[in-house]
C-alpha cells in the first residue's frame, strides 16, 4: 500500500477553505462545479443521481448557448459536462462548445477544450472535422504549450482523411529542439500509422532517426511504432536488432538519467517494450537470436530485486527467451525463474507464473512436469482466477491420454462458474478438444455417464439435468462447427441407455422436457446440428411425456420446416421425426400439409421423406412395423457391392445402356474429346491435355503413397499412445530440452495405484533444487495420494523422454521398446528387455544410465555395431536420403560412440546441450538437389526452421509444367532420428509428393530431401505451404517441427502460347475480370512494347500480338489456369484489362504486374 493518505469526506469543509493545492486554488465552495461535486458526493440513490444530473444538464445547456459566457466559465461548464457524461448522461449539446473552447480559449481553457473533445467524441464523429483548423493553427503557434496540446490531441484522435493537411507540420516537429515536441510528434505519427499506415510510408527513415534520438523519451516513443511494424513484418527490421540490444543493454546497465527510474529500477516499462520487440525479431531466427542472448542473460541477472516491477520484467524476459531460438543455459535460467514465480506465496506472482507456464508449455510441454504438484494445488485454489488460469495451462498440454481428465476438470469448473464469458470460452474449449481428439469423444460421454449417474442415486435428478444441459450448451455453442461425432455419440448414448430402465426413462424424459421450451422459444437461433438432435429425440421419446400431445410436437416440428435458415439436412431429420410421431386423426392435417409441400421439393431426399411421411401416416400398421417404438438399435448389414441392383443393371444393359465407367476413365475420355473440339468454355486448353493425363496416371501411386503415410502415422500415434508425447496442435520450437536434467523425482506417483490402464506411471529425474517440498519415498497421506493420482493422469504423456517403468506394471512402455527394438534388428531386442529389467530393479538415475551403458558396451557392442552398420547401409540406398557421413559414422559405430548408445539404449542419458546445432547449414545444400532438378534454376535455399536436432531448408525449382518444392532436412544432431515423416500441405496449393517422401531414418549429420510438386488450387497474392516433420529420437520421444514457406504466385506463371483467334474466343468466354491503370515505362520511343517486354521478362508472360496502341498478352498459372491480358495506352497510362475463368486470378496478377513495374 502506498503512503497516500486518504482524506475522507468529513474533511470537505477544511479542504475547500484551505487553498493549498495548485488544483483546488481556483475553486470556491460556492462555484457551480463545487455545488455539483458536493451534490454528487451526497448522492444516496440512483434516482437522486438522475434528478441531480438532469437538473445540471438543463442548467449547463442554458448557459453554454448564452453569448455572455466567458471562456473561463465555458471551461467550468465543460468540466461539468464531463461529469454528466461520466455518470452516463449524454451531454451532446456541449460537444460543439468543446470544440469552440479549444479554438478560442487560452492555455488551460484550451487544454480543457481539447480534453473534452477527446472524451466526448469518438474517432469517426463528424464534428471532429471542425477541430482540424484549430489543430493546424496551434501546430504553427509560437507558444510551445499550444503546440504540445495540439500534438497530444492529434495522437489521440484525428480524422483519417485530414492527415495530409497536417502531416508536413508534424513531420517538421521531428526536428524541434525541445524533446517534448519531438516526442509528441513521434506519437502523432504513430497514431497516423495506426489509422492510415500508407500515409506515413515515406517517413520510415525519420522513424529511424527518432530511434537514434539523443533523448531517451523520443527513442521510447519511436518504439511504439517499431513494435507495431515489427509485429506486421519482422523480416524488414532484422537489421535493427543490434540497436535494440544496445538500447536494452544501456537501460539495464543504468545509463539513463535517474528520473527514468521507478523504485530504483531503470525504466521498467521501456525494458518490457524492448523485450517484446526482441522476442518478435528473434522468433524462428537463430542468427538474430544469437545477438540478444547476452543482454537477456544480463536482464535476468539484474532483475533480482524483490519488487513487483522486476517480476513484471522477468515475466517478459522469460517469454522472450522461450520465443526466440533456444539457448540451453538461458532456458534453464528462465525455467528456474518460472519456478520462483509459481512457488511464490504472493498470489499475483503465482498467477503470473501460471501464465508464463501456460505460454512456455506450448513450446515445451515437459516443463509442466516440474511443477505438476503446484499445478494440482492451483487447480484447487480458492481463488477462481488461479483455477481458471490453471485450466488454461492444462488446455495447452492436452494430449490423447489426458484429454478426458482435463475435460472433466473443465466441466467441473463450468459447474461453479457464474460468468457467461468463462462458460462460453470453456465450453468452446471442450468442444475444441472433442474435435481434436475425436476418438475420445465417446469416451468423454461415457465418462460423464460414469461420473454422474451410478455414483449418486439419491442426487440423481440434478445430475441428469446437468448432463443434458451441458450437452445442450455444447450443442448450442459448438453449433455447426462441431464435429458430427458429438451429436451422434450423444444420441447413441441416449438410445442405448445405462443400467437401469427407470433411469434411462428419466434421462430421456428430461431431454424431451428441456427441448420443448427451446422449440417454443426461438428455435431459429439454434444451430442446425442441435435442431437435428432435438428432432430425433422428440421423434423417439416425446411419447414419454404423457401430458404432451403429439399434435403439439408435430406443430412445433412443422415450425422448424418453415424457418428460412433450416438446412435441407435438418428438414429431412424433422420429416423423419414427424413420420415417427404422426398417428392420423387430429394430426392428419399438419402432416398432410407438410407432405404435400415437400413431395414436390427439388431436393430428392426431402421428396422421399415427404412421400414416406404421407404413406406411413395413412397406414399405422406398416408404420409400426417399419418404425417400432422403443426399438433398440440393431446393427445393419450394408451390402456395399449393391448386388441387389444386379438385375436392374443387366436389364438396362440389355436395353442398350452404356456400361459403367469409373470416374477417372470418364474424365480422361472427356479431356481427350475436349482437346479435339475447340470448346470456347471451360478450362481444358490444348496445353492441359498432357499435364492432365499425367496427373491422372500418377494418381494411383499418389493414393497408395498417402495411404502408406497415414498408416505410418497411425502406427506412430498408436505407439505414442503408451507414453510418448502426442504433439498434435502443440507447437514445438525445440526438441531436446537442455534443462530436463532438473526434473524432480516423483517416483511415488508411479507407486500409486492408477485406475486407468492407459495411464502410464510417473517419470524420473535427477532431482530439482526448486522442489524440496515434494515428498519422496515416504508413505503419503490420503489427500496427497489423491493429488498424485490426479497428477499422474494429468501429466501422462508428457515425460516420454525418460518414462521408465519403475514398478514394471506399466505394460505399454516395455511394449513400445520391444517393438521399436524389433525394427532395429535381432540383437537389440535382447538389449532392450535387459535394459528394462535392470531399470526395474533399481530406481533409475544418472548412475544407472551409466551402468546400463556399460552393460551394453561389454555384452553387445559387436552385435550392435554390426546391426548399426546394416542400418546405415540400408539408409544410403534409401531413395531421397543423402547420407553424407556414412563413412565417418561407421567406424564411429564400431567404437560404440555415445550417439550409438543413445540410438539403442532405452534408458538414455539426456543428451548434453548441443553447442552447434546448425553445423550442416553452412554446407552447400545445392549438392543435395535431386539430379533431375540440378540443371534447372532454383530459388535461394532458405532456412525454414530448426531445433537442436533438425535443420530444415527449402527452395523451389521452376520446371516448364510444374513447380517443385524441395525440402532439405538436415539432421544436425549426434544421433540418428527415426520414423521421420514429412507432411506438406497448403490452403491455396495442391501438393503432391514426388518420388519417395523422406521417411524413416536420417542418420547423424546427413541430409534427407523431400520433393513436392505444387500447383495452384486457389490463386492468392502469396501462397504458402505449411508442413510438419515428425520424428522419433533414439530415446523414443516423438518430436515434431512445424514450418511454413511462402512462394510468390509469380513462380507459378508460365507463358501461354495462343493465336490471336484463340485469344479472341477465350476472351469472350472468361467471366472474371479486373481493370486497372499501370504506369508506363517511358524511357524510349515505344512505351507499350517496352512495358510489355518488361512484364514478359519479369513475369514470364507471352505477348500474343501488339497492334498500334494495344497489346494482348496471355499467361497460364500452373497447371492450366489461363489468364488473358488486354493492354491499351491511354493518356500516359497503360490501361490493363485482365480476364480469366478463375476467380481472384486477375486481381492477383494485376498486383504482381504492379509490383514488377514498380521494381523497375
Amino acid at each position, binding site marked *: 500500500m*502506498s503512503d*497516500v*493518505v*486518504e*482524506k475522507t*469526506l468529513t474533511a*470537505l469543509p477544511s*479542504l475547500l477553505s484551505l487553498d493549498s493545492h495548485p*488544483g*483546488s486554488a481556483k475553486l470556491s465552495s460556492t462555484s457551480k462545479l*463545487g455545488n455539483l461535486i458536493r451534490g*454528487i*458526493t451526497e448522492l444516496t440513490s440512483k434516482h437522486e443521481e438522475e434528478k441531480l444530473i438532469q437538473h445540471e444538464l438543463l442548467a449547463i445547456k442554458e448557459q453554454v448557448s448564452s453569448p455572455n459566457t466567458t471562456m473561463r466559465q465555458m471551461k467550468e461548464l465543460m468540466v461539468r459536462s*464531463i*461529469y454528466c457524461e461520466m455518470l*452516463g448522461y449524454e451531454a451532446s449539446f456541449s460537444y460543439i462548445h468543446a470544440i469552440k473552447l479549444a479554438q478560442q480559449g487560452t*492555455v*488551460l481553457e484550451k487544454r*480543457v477544450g481539447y*480534453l473534452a473533445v*477527446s472524451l466526448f467524441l469518438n474517432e469517426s464523429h463528424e464534428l471532429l472535422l471542425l477541430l482540424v483548423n484549430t489543430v493546424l493553427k496551434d501546430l504553427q503557434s509560437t507558444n510551445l*504549450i499550444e503546440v*504540445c496540446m495540439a500534438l*497530444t490531441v492529434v*495522437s*489521440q484522435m484525428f480524422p483519417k482523411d485530414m492527415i495530409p493537411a497536417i502531416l508536413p507540420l508534424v513531420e517538421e516537429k521531428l526536428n524541434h529542439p525541445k524533446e*517534448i515536441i519531438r516526442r509528441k510528434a513521434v506519437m502523432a505519427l504513430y*497514431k497516423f500509422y495506426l489509422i492510415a499506415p500508407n500515409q506515413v510510408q515515406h517517413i520510415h527513415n525519420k522513424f529511424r532517426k527518432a530511434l537514434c534520438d539523443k533523448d531517451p*523519451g523520443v527513442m521510447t516513443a519511436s518504439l*511504439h511504432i517499431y513494435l507495431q511494424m515489427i509485429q506486421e513484418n519482422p523480416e524488414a527490421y532484422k537489421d535493427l536488432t543490434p540497436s535494440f540490444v544496445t538500447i536494452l543493454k544501456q537501460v539495464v546497465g543504468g545509463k539513463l538519467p535517474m*528520473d*527514468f527510474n*521507478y523504485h530504483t529500477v531503470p*525504466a*521498467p*516499462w*521501456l525494458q*518490457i517494450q524492448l523485450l517484446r520487440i526482441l522476442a518478435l525479431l528473434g522468433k524462428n531466427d537463430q542468427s538474430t537470436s544469437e545477438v540478444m542472448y547476452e543482454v537477456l542473460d544480463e536482464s535476468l541477472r539484474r532483475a533480482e530485486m524483490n519488487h*513487483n*516491477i522486476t*517480476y*513484471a520484467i522477468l515475466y*517478459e524476459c522469460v517469454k522472450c527467451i522461450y520465443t526466440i531460438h533456444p539457448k540451453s543455459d538461458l532456458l534453464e535460467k528462465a525455467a528456474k525463474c518460472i519456478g520462483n514465480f509459481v512457488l511464490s506465496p504472493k*498470489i*499475483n*506472482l503465482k*498467477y503470473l507464473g501460471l501464465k508464463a507456464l501456460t505460454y512456455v508449455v506450448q513450446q515445451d510441454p515437459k516443463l509442466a512436469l516440474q511443477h505438476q504438484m503446484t499445478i494440482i494445488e492451483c487447480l484447487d485454489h480458492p*481463488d477462481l*482466477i*488461479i483455477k*481458471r488460469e490453471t485450466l488454461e495451462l492444462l488446455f495447452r498440454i492436452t494430449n490423447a491420454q489426458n484429454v478426458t481428465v482435463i475435460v472433466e476438470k473443465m466441466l467441473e469448473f463450468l459447474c461453479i462458474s457464474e*460468468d457467461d*464469458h*468463462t462458460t462460453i*470460452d470453456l465450453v468452446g474449449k471442450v*468442444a475444441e478438444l472433442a474435435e481434436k481428439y475425436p476418438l475420445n469423444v465417446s469416451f468423454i460421454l461415457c465418462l460423464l455417464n460414469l461420473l454422474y449417474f451410478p455414483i449418486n442415486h439419491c442426487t440423481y435428478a440434478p445430475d441428469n439435468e446437468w448432463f443434458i444441459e451441458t450437452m445442450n450448451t455444447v450443442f448450442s*455453442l459448438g453449433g*455447426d*462447427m462441431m464435429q458430427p461425432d458429438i451429436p451422434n455419440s450423444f444420441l447413441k448414448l441416449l438410445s442405448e441407455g445405462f443400467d437401469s430402465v427407470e433411469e434411462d426413462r428419466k434421462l430421456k424424459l428430461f431431454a424431451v422436457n428441456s427441448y420443448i421450451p427451446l422449440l417454443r422459444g426461438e428455435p431459429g*437461433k439454434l444451430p442446425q446440428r442441435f435442431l437435428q438432435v432435438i428432432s430425433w429425440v422428440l421423434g423417439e421419446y416425446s411419447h414419454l411425456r404423457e401430458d404432451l400431445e403429439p399434435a403439439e410436437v408435430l406443430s412445433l416440428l412443422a415450425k422448424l420446416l418453415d424457418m428460412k435458415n433450416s438446412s435441407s439436412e435438418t428438414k429431412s431429420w424433422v420429416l423423419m421425426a414427424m413420420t415417427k410421431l404422426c398417428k392420423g386423426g387430429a394430426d392428419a392435417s399438419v402432416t398432410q400439409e407438410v407432405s404435400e409441400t415437400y413431395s414436390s421439393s427439388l431436393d430428392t431426399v426431402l421428396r422421399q421423406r415427404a412421400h414416406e411421411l404421407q404413406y406411413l401416416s395413412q397406414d399405422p400398421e406398416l408404420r409400426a412395423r417399419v418404425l417400432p417404438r422403443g426399438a433398440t438399435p440393431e446393427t445393419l448389414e450394408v451390402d456395399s457391392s449393391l448386388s441387389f441392383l444386379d438385375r436392374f443393371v443387366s436389364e438396362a444393359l440389355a436395353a442398350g445402356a452404356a456400361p459403367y465407367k469409373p470416374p477417372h476413365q470418364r474424365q480422361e475420355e472427356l479431356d481427350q474429346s475436349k482437346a479435339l473440339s475447340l470448346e470456347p468454355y471451360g478450362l481444358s486448353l490444348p496445353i492441359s491435355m498432357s499435364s492432365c493425363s499425367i496427373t491422372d496416371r500418377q494418381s494411383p501411386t499418389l493414393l497408395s503413397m498417402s495411404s502408406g503415410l497415414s498408416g505410418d502415422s497411425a502406427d506412430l500415434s498408436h505407439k505414442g499412445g503408451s507414453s510418448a508425447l502426442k504433439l498434435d496442435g502443440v507447437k514445438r520450437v525445440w526438441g531436446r530440452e537442455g534443462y530436463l536434467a532438473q526434473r524432480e523425482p516423483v517416483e511415488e506417483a508411479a507407486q500409486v495405484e492408477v485406475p486407468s490402464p492407459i495411464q502410464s506411471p510417473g517419470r524420473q529425474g535427477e532431482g530439482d533444487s526448486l522442489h524440496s517440498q515434494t515428498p519422496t519415498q515416504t508413505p503419503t497421506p490420503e489427500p496427497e495420494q489423491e493429488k498424485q493420482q490426479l497428477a499422474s493422469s494429468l501429466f501422462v504423456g508428457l515425460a516420454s523422454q525418460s518414462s521408465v517403468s519403475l514398478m514394471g506394471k506399466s505394460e505399454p512402455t516395455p511394449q513400445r521398446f520391444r517393438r521399436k527394438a524389433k525394427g532395429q534388428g535381432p540383437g537389440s531386442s535382447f538389449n532392450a528387455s535387459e535394459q528394462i529389467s535392470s531399470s526395474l530393479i533399481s530406481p533409475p538415475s544418472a548412475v544407472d544410465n551409466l551402468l546400463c551403458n556399460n552393460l551394453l558396451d561389454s555384452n553387445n557392442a559387436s552385435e550392435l555395431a554390426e546391426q548399426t552398420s546394416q542400418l546405415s547401409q540400408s539408409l544410403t540406398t534409401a531413395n531421397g536420403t543423402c547420407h553424407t557421413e556414412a563413412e565417418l559414422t561407421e567406424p564411429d559405430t564400431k567404437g560404440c560412440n555415445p550417439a550409438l548408445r543413445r540410438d539403442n539404449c532405452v534408458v538414455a542419458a539426456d543428451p548434453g546441450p548441443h553447442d552447434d546445432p546448425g553445423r550442416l547449414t553452412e554446407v552447400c545444400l545445392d549438392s543435395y538437389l535431386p539430379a533431375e532438378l540440378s540443371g534447372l534454376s532454383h530459388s535461394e535455399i532458405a532456412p525454414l526452421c530448426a531445433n537442436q536436432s533438425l535443420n530444415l531448408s527449402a527452395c523451389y525449382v521452376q520446371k516448364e509444367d510444374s513447380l517443385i518444392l524441395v525440402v532439405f532436412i538436415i539432421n544436425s544432431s549426434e544421433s540418428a532420428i527415426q520414423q521421420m515423416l514429412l507432411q506438406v500441405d497448403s490452403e491455396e496449393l495442391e501438393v503432391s509428393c514426388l518420388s519417395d517422401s523422406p521417411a524413416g531414418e536420417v542418420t547423424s549429420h546427413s541430409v534427407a530431401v523431400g520433393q513436392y510438386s505444387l500447383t495452384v488450387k486457389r490463386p492468392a497474392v502469396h501462397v504458402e505451404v505449411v508442413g510438419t516433420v515428425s520424428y522419433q529420437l533414439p530415446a523414443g520421444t516423438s518430436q515434431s517441427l512445424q514450418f511454413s514457406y511462402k512462394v510468390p504466385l509469380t513462380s507459378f506463371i508460365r507463358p501461354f502460347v495462343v493465336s490471336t483467334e484463340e485469344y479472341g474466343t477465350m476472351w469472350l468466354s472468361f467471366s472474371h475480370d479486373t481493370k486497372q491503370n499501370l504506369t508506363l515505362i517511358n524511357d524510349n520511343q515505344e512505351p507499350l512494347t517496352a512495358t510489355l517486354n518488361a512484364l514478359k521478362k519479369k513475369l514470364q508472360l507471352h505477348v500474343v500480338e501488339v497492334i498500334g496502341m494495344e497489346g494482348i498478352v496471355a499467361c497460364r498459372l500452373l497447371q492450366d489456369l489461363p489468364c488473358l491480358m488486354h493492354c491499351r495506352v491511354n493518356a500516359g497510362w497503360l490501361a490493363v484489362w485482365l480476364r480469366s475463368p478463375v476467380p481472384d486470378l486477375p486481381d492477383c496478377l494485376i498486383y504482381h504486374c504492379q509490383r514488377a513495374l514498380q521494381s523497375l
Partner: protein
Amino acid sequence: MEPSRLKERPAADRRMIKFVLMVNRQGQTRLSRYYHSVELSRRAALEADVVRYCLSRKKDQCSFVEYKDFKLVYRQYAALYIVVGITDSENELSIYELVHNFVEVLDKYFSRVSELDIMFNLDRVHIILDEMIQNGHIVETNKSRILAPLTAIDKMVES
C-alpha cells in the same frame, strides 16, 4: 451465444489497455477513460459490473480478475479503487505497477492526493493520465516528464 463468438477471441489478442477507472467503495465513478469505443449507454453497466467484481474480492486474492474477454487489474487506495481493463496478452503485473506510478504522480502533483483532489480537479487528472496512456499504450512513465506540460500550464495561468 452465437457460435461466431468462439472465433472472435484471437482478434481481441491485440495488446492494449482498454480503460482506466477510478471508483470508490460506494461504487461511484470518480474518473473514467476509455481507449476503445464503448457507447455511453453501456458504460454505466460495465462500470457497475467492474465495481462489483473488484469489491467482492478479498485482500488475499489475486489483483487480477477475468471479466468478459479481458482482464481487470485493480489496486485499492483507501476507499478508492483504480481499475484498469486490459486485453489478455498484456503483462498484468506491469499494469499493476503502472497504476501505482500513476498514483505516485498524482501524489507528487497534489502533494498527498485524496479522493476530493481528484473530484475537484478532474480535468487535471485527465491531463496527467493523457500524458501517461495514449491509444491504450503506456507512453510515458517518467514522473517529471508526465507533469511538465501541466505545470507549464499552471505557471501560465498564474502569471
